[in-house]
């Protein structure tokens, strides 16, 4: 397998977050429109200026990107629909970047939007996927909590990781969230509170779980020239990977597709994990954060306990992680949760964070993980971003 | 002006010098029916399925579908019921002359004998003794056999079915010959489930009541009640079977008109 072609003539800009709310009576369409309006405010672009549209959502049914385009008055010459939840940010970026690089589109708006109506979470779960409907959710209907409880318990046993280790990650992310005015969690979390929280599905406890909410995220992919014309700070893409349904032989998931492709990622990026100034990884549960750190090359899994103990994951720390608080503290707005890592990574290197700034941040690792179709996450992806221009 | 018999009857009914006695058991699903050996076809009990009762199947009306055998509950046996009457004219309920539906009755009380012996057999000798005491049985009468058996309805003793068959009183062949040929009875009216005795299958000839009554165009009335309320002579029985085309019998309402002497 040859090296990935470099992303040339691509600029990512205008990270956009529509403030989350716990419950919303509005639709995904409303939230997508809110994201575009916010994007327009930052960029000055109107519907006619956007010639590419990439969309991700769980709650837009019966519409796909097609319905959304007509609903929101767009007339793009390129569009895509990304149904991969937590991996959708990286995947949208990959597709939009190549479209711009090849001239299929010049200004691509990538939007993820989801609402959270009363009871819509349960309904989304009940019909989430064919396999989960047939073979997971009727088994206690614990939702992802139960599935990740199985994964977490197995991971702890296999690699000697304890709850305290996961707790350190959650506490650090909460610390990061306290500076983010848009984070839903606004009070500090101590390790004691984490440890004594009520059990949800052993060994997953309350603070291992995200809070479902409504919200939207967006960013723009365009050419460096257009970014300059619009006066937007921009970042370049150093490398990306994507892998689906890897390691089907594992009885319980303890690794993701990153492990298969990480070498290609770092080789193309021309750097190593230690060169990253911040890491924004998908964090539906802390076990997945730990899994990504290992699978993406920060340490080996048996060394995770020591690695996590040795690092400080807060914004001023040795490895700033999920600097907006991540989904665990900022909230999980459906598919927008899969864009959050990308918009936050982008904000840090473009020096426009929602909360505190990671000092000297110029490079970010963004990692996505999506879609528990059955007993494990199927979709994985990662991207290495670097500051291009500050304006 | 002489008043017609019917006017007189109407007056008597009005002033209660003539009373109506109901001789009918209530038709209900649990009223017993005759039990034949299991390999024979069986008599269907009374059944009732509601069609509507002021509900969505009929908001303002109540009615039921009912089903039963022709010989269920208080019922009438036409001559065609028995093989001996199969070739007689007018042998089915629809053809029986209406005149026969109204006839006087003579009540022969064998309740003491039946109480002492469930298998009590009514013989010609018994009847001759009875006539010696009460006078001759008039012609064209129902012979109403009072056994007080109706008081056993609702208990296992009504059918009185033992391992060797049913045990209930009834006539033998010679008694039936006497009643039919020498007293020209209209028919035999009983409180038991059949005109024949429970063990009459083993008589010689077998089942003489059915055989002789129906072979001579006479009728049966079964599962009657209240025969103890009738006088020995003078009661008038009104028993009108349903006009079932080609029917062998019919459930029916049976009443008796009885004169009451003023107190």
């Amino acid at each position, binding site marked *: 397998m040859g090296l990935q072609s470099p992303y040339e003539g691509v600029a990512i800009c205008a990270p956009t977050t529509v403030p989350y709310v716990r419950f919303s009576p509005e639709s995904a369409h409303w939230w997508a429109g809110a994201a575009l309006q916010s994007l327009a405010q930052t960029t000055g672009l109107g519907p006619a200026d956007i010639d590419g549209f990439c969309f991700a959502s769980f709650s837009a049914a019966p519409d796909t990107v097609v319905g959304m385009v007509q609903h929101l008055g767009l007339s793009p010459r390129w569009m895509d629909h990304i149904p991969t939840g937590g991996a959708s940010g990286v995947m949208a970026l990959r597709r939009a970047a190549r479209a711009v690089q090849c001239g299929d589109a010049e200004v691509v708006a990538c939007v993820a939007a989801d609402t959270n109506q009363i009871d819509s*979470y*349960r309904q989304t*779960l*009940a*019909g989430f996927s*064919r*396999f989960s*409907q*047939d*073979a*997971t*959710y*009727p*088994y*206690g*209907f*614990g*939702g992802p*909590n*139960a*599935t990740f*409880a*199985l*994964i977490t*318990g*197995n991971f702890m*046993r296999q690699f000697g990781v304890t709850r305290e280790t996961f707790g350190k990650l959650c506490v650090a992310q909460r610390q990061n969230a306290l500076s983010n005015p848009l984070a839903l969690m606004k009070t500090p979390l101590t390790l004691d509170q984490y440890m004594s929280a*009520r*059990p*949800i*599905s*052993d*060994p*997953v406890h309350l603070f291992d779980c995200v809070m479902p909410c409504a919200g939207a995220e967006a960013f723009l992919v365009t050419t460096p020239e257009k970014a300059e014309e619009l006066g937007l700070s921009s970042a370049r893409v150093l490398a990306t990977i994507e892998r689906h349904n890897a390691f089907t032989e594992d*009885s*319980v998931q303890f690794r993701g597709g990153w492990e298969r492709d990480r070498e290609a990622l770092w080789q193309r990026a021309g750097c190593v994990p230690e060169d990253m100034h911040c890491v924004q990884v998908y964090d539906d549960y802390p076990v997945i954060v730990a899994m990504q750190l290992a699978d993406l090359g920060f340490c080996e899994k048996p060394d995770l306990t020591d690695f996590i103990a040795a690092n400080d994951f807060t914004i001023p720390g040795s490895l700033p992680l999920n600097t907006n608080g991540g989904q665990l503290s900022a909230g999980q707005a459906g598919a927008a949760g899969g864009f959050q890592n990308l918009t936050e990574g982008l904000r840090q290197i473009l020096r426009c964070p929602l909360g505190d700034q990671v000092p000297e941040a110029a490079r970010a690792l963004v990692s996505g993980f999506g879609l528990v179709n*059955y*007993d494990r996450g199927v979709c994985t992806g990662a991207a290495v971003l670097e500051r291009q221009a500050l304006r | 002006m002489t008043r017609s018999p019917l006017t007189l009857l109407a007056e008597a009914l009005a002033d209660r010098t003539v009373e109506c006695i109901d001789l009918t058991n209530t038709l209900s*699903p*649990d009223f*017993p029916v005759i*039990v034949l050996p*299991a390999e024979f*076809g*069986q008599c*269907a*009990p009374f*059944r*009732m*399925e*509601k069609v509507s009762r002021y509900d969505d199947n009929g908001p303002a009306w109540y009615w039921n579908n009912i089903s039963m055998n022709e010989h269920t509950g208080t019922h009438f046996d036409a001559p065609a019921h028995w093989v001996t009457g199969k070739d007689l004219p007018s042998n089915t309920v629809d053809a029986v002359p209406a005149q026969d539906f109204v006839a006087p009755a003579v009540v022969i009380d064998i309740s003491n004998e039946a109480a002492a012996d469930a298998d009590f057999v009514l013989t010609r000798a018994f009847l001759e003794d009875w006539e010696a005491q009460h006078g001759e049985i008039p012609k064209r009468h129902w012979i109403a056999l009072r056994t007080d058996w109706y008081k056993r309805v*609702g*208990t*296992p003793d*009504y*059918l009185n*079915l033992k391992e060797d068959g049913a045990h209930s009183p009834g006539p033998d062949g010679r008694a039936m010959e006497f009643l039919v040929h020498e007293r020209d009875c209209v028919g035999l009216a009983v409180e038991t489930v059949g005109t024949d005795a429970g063990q009459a299958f083993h008589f010689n000839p077998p089942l003489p009541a059915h055989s002789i009554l129906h072979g001579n165009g006479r009728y049966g009335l079964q599962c009657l009640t209240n025969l103890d309320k009738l006088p020995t002579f003078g009661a008038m029985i009104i028993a009108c079977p349903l006009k079932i085309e080609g029917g062998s019998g019919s459930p029916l309402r049976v009443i008796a008109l009885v004169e009451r002497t003023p107190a």
Partner: protein
Amino acid sequence: MTEPLPIPKRKDPLKRSRFGLVPPGLRSRAASEMATFAAQGRFVLQSCDRCRSITYPPRDRCPSCWGTLTWADQDRGARIEAVTTIRHSTDNFFRNHMPWRIGTARLDAGPVAIVHLHGEVQQGDRVRMTLRLDRGGNPALFAVPQKETPNMQDDPQLRCFTADPKHRRVLVTDGRTAIGQAIARALLKAGAQTVFLGDADPLMRYPGKAEIEAQEGIEPVSLNLTDSGSVQELAAQLGGRVDIVVNTAGFVRPGGVAFGAKLSDLQATFDLGAVGLARLAQGFAPAMSARSDDGVNSAAAFLDIVPVSGLSGQSGYAGAAASAAARLSLMSGLRGEMQQSGIRVLSVLTGPVDDDWHQDLPQPKVAPGQLARAVVHALTEGQGITCAGDVAKDLFARWQANPLLTMREENR
């Protein structure tokens, strides 16, 4: 070992019965097909017609070679790789039954499956896999200890997948036959608290009456399935106290269709067998549905014993077979109606029984004890279709393989 189930207390009249919910019921067609095997107590997975690889969850094509798939019986062995105790659910049925234990099982047959766990099963254990029907009639994988353990059936989670007679009150509709009596005795032996034993004709003695009525736990009741009033009256008396209905009533007489047949027998067999079944369901199903999840002695099952000839017809017993076919059809309808209420609708298929009406048929015939064992098995396993005796097993297997051929074979 499992804690023995407590003897249920009498219901607190001030307490609202817990609503009889069922687990989420949305399933693919493939999963629904899996349910047809679960109903027989078989443990099946899909096997590829081309490459023979075994797959799970239910798929429509083989993930190894894209060949077509066929359900096939599998080795029941498995190892539990991971375990969790779910303490929170957004589904109301499971909320009522928290905590709930599930696990990841590596099946000896190959695939990995999320499974329900018996209380005694722990991470790392070797287990025996069972495929059951859940309360909504959907297929469910349930891991139980490899070897029988004391009170194993009393596991509260397992009990959601069975209609175990233990501590329950059972109505046996016809106790006048040796079969009805054997079933009543077997149910008491299996732990039933009370057997209400139906008598269609209380004024008429029957063989064994004195002995069975003297047995502790037996309560004779008047019940005649051909009489709507009788059924309604008993339902009014017992409706809230009957947890399991076992319909042992039936009317079988020899006879063909055009030859050697009695229409009155045909009517009687339909009136008792088919219409009687509907009367029984109308009388008891509504009250049972309302209390399908109200504790140890919740209402659990409606079971019908039906001649297997209902599947195929049977020469010499055409009317009885036709009535049996009607019963099977009504039971299918009832199963659909009860799926939302959590009451199991179970059929026990039987070959000719060893009674007065099958004197001329050759052996093997089903003895009352055999039928009683099948009934107890169907209830303790919550199994939708159970064959009692070799004739039923043979015919059912032939019918599954080729229904039209079986109909020919049984009608010549």
